């Protein structure tokens, strides 16, 4: 059957593999010594919510996540929508081929028509026939600070989004629901901005070298000590770019003969880093601890693929908050598994650092766990700190090793001084070391905003994914045309959102993603949810 929650294999297999036809009888059953409670087979009728935590003794607070499944009617209509778009796409291609319609896509030159074609025109099908039609929802130019409200440069297109012209007008005070501005540090006034300006006057804005050569400033050392104190780890290291932190450091940590167990929905930087390292990669189903345990057990029992030698190390790579789903990792269970099977844990807190936890300490703080349990804590400064760059925190030996072996440290320019100062100032505010309660206020405001916004949208009947405490709120749209409609209607009402569709998400799970910020006031959130209701009445949304 097609995938429905009742039909997904409980063992966490990615797809149903046909066995050799033998049925497991009770007599032949090997008793399972799995750590985590395995759901029993044939319990489908009773199991209504597969996301209920089975091991609640590990969790100090309720862990409520919901990923409501696509209703069947909606799925059928979505496929119909894509089918109609495909037929029209072929029609348009036909018209373009016979020059009835003007072709804006790059084509081979006349002189090279007999050569091997340079452009794969089928791979471009989706882009030119579907993406181009709703392209005005992305890449909108922001003029000014993308804080709680932002200004957008108005664009018009006279050839259906193939080219844009700026009218010269600026759309002012658009409520910004797309920036990862969780604690509202994206501002150009205030203590952070003043400190950054002072530092620019002292150090300049460029560094001009890598960390290993002459680019190691004292402000970097101060920043790293501060990060280590903030996270509760022994030592840390900061890099200039968040993506490069992942992709350049995972190759330094693992190599051939190692195993990386990475979540299905891990970010591109983690996947790239894992690929560059040369280790074997196995993917477990998203946030599914049974799947992870099964993979761990299989890996340890069978060893490396052909030689069956033991793995040199096993690294579990998870994220704190998954930005496309809004789900939070089940960290207590992951740590329990890691301890039992003696694997290492790499936690990417790009979205969760500063946004979760009573002190802003991220997902470790949120669950009340010991930071020493996580071997490698990685995060970025882009989201909650209003800066740029990434860090890795852990034991002193590990960070000292990374200082000399990381590709980033050796080849990439170090962080720019005003950016580093912005991080220092904002981190001190969050920790409360600047003397004011601004940090605590903002953390509280963020969690209140998150709860309020989620509840408001839920009460209005929208389908929201993710954990109840996560500031990333994906609102399901499902159908391809609603993606464009939603983005444009919200912009008409002066709200900027990010909408995502296939192939970035599964084909029947297109969504709009709201990022709640501490800088949003309750009135702004009310306006957003009201506009959401109006839009839904216009475009007949899916309600649960």
């Amino acid at each position: 059957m097609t995938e429905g929650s009742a039909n997904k294999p409980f063992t966490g297999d990615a797809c149903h593999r046909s066995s050799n036809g033998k049925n497991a009888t009770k007599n032949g059953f090997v008793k399972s010594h799995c750590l985590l409670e395995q759901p029993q087979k044939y319990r489908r009728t009773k199991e209504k919510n597969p996301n209920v935590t089975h091991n609640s003794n590990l969790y100090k607070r309720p862990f409520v996540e919901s990923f409501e499944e696509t209703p069947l009617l909606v799925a059928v209509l979505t496929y119909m929508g894509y089918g109609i778009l495909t037929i029209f796409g072929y029609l348009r291609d036909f018209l373009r081929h016979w020059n009835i319609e003007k072709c804006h896509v790059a084509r081979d030159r006349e002189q090279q028509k007999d050569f091997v074609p340079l452009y794969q025109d089928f791979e471009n099908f989706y882009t030119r026939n579907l993406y181009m039609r709703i392209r005005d929802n992305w890449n909108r130019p922001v003029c000014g600070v993308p804080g709680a409200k932002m200004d957008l440069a108005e664009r018009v297109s006279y050839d259906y989004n193939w080219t844009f012209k700026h009218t010269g007008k600026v759309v002012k005070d658009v409520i910004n629901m797309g920036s990862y501005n969780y604690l509202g540090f994206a501002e150009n006034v205030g203590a952070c901005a003043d400190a950054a300006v002072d530092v620019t006057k002292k150090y300049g804005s460029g560094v001009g070298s890598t960390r290993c050569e002459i680019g190691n400033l004292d402000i970097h050392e101060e920043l790293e000590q501060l990060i280590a104190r903030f996270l509760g780890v022994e030592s840390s290291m900061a890099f200039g770019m968040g993506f490069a932190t992942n992709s350049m450091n995972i190759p330094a940590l693992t190599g051939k003969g190692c195993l990386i167990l990475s979540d299905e929905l891990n970010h591109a930087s983690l996947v790239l880093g894992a690929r560059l390292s040369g280790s074997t990669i196995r993917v477990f189903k998203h946030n599914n601890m049974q799947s992870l345990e099964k993979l761990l057990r299989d890996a340890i029992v069978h060893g490396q693929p052909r030689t069956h030698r033991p793995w040199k190390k096993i690294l579990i790579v998870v994220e704190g908050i998954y930005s496309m789903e809004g789900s939070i990792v089940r960290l207590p269970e992951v740590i329990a598994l890691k301890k039992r099977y003696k694997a290492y844990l790499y936690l990417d807190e790009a979205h969760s650092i500063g946004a979760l936890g009573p002190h802003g300490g991220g997902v470790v703080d949120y669950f009340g766990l010991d930071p020493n349990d996580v071997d490698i804590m990685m995060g970025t400064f882009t989201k909650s700190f209003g800066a740029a760059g990434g860090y890795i925190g852990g034991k002193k030996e590990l960070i000292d090793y990374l200082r000399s072996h990381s590709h980033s440290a050796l080849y990439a320019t170090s962080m720019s001084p005003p950016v580093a100062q912005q991080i220092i100032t904002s981190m001190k505010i969050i920790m409360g070391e600047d003397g004011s309660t601004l940090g605590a206020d903002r953390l509280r405001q963020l969690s209140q905003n998150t709860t309020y916004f989620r509840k408001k949208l839920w009460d209005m009947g929208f389908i929201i994914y993710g954990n109840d405490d996560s500031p990333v709120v994906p609102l399901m749209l499902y159908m391809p045309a609603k993606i464009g409609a939603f983005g444009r209607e919200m912009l008409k009402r002066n709200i900027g959102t990010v909408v995502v569709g296939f192939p970035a998400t599964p084909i029947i799970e297109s969504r709009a993603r709201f990022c709640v910020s501490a800088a949003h006031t309750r009135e702004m959130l009310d306006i957003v949810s009201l506009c959401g209701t109006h839009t839904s009445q216009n475009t007949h949304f899916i309600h649960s």
Partner: protein
Amino acid sequence: MSDTLTWFAQLPRSQSIFTPPFGPFFVLLLLQKTLVSDWLTGNKVGGNNNGITWCLCALRVGRTPRSRTKVTMNVGTAHSEVNPNTRVMNSRGMWLSYILGIGLLHIILLSIPFASVPVVWTLTNLIHNLCMYLLLHMVKGTPFETPDQGKARLLTHWEQMDYGVQFTASRKFLTITPIVMYILTSFYTKYDRIHFVVNTVSLLTVLIPKLPQLHGVRIFGINKY
């Protein structure tokens, strides 16, 4: 001729196309092709090896590697699924949409005033099989760029499904549906001879490419690139 036989003898026995019951058929086909190609190139029979190499290329003897590597750089996707096309047929509601689509086609054809019921059923069967052949076995690659650096560019959608794993649920469903359509059509056309011939040929065009032995095979080099 002797070249053909030595070449045949040297082939490893694990080649899938030589397993029964298709083995003898393909051997005969090969021999035929050798002779024909020699005739086409105007050489003496069994003269030089062009014919044999041409056959080899044409039939792509040998298995397409089925193992896939999941290590890739994912640009623009929020998941590590390398080729979303592999999962499309498994998604929720897809089978139902497919059946409803066939139903819709049938109803549209039934509403043509001058078409009798057997003709309508045969037309439904033909159009369904034609569309299935075009979409599953003719069109290659993906309509979007995938991070797998073009591994799926030369594969049809049938070959991409589930990364080449055979006998999955979707593959079985898509094999059984044309057969069920054929049985229904045979019934409604009252087993008329002409309708039978037409429907059977159409069914064969849609069933033969689904055989696991024909995974990655391009006969006569048709649709290779």
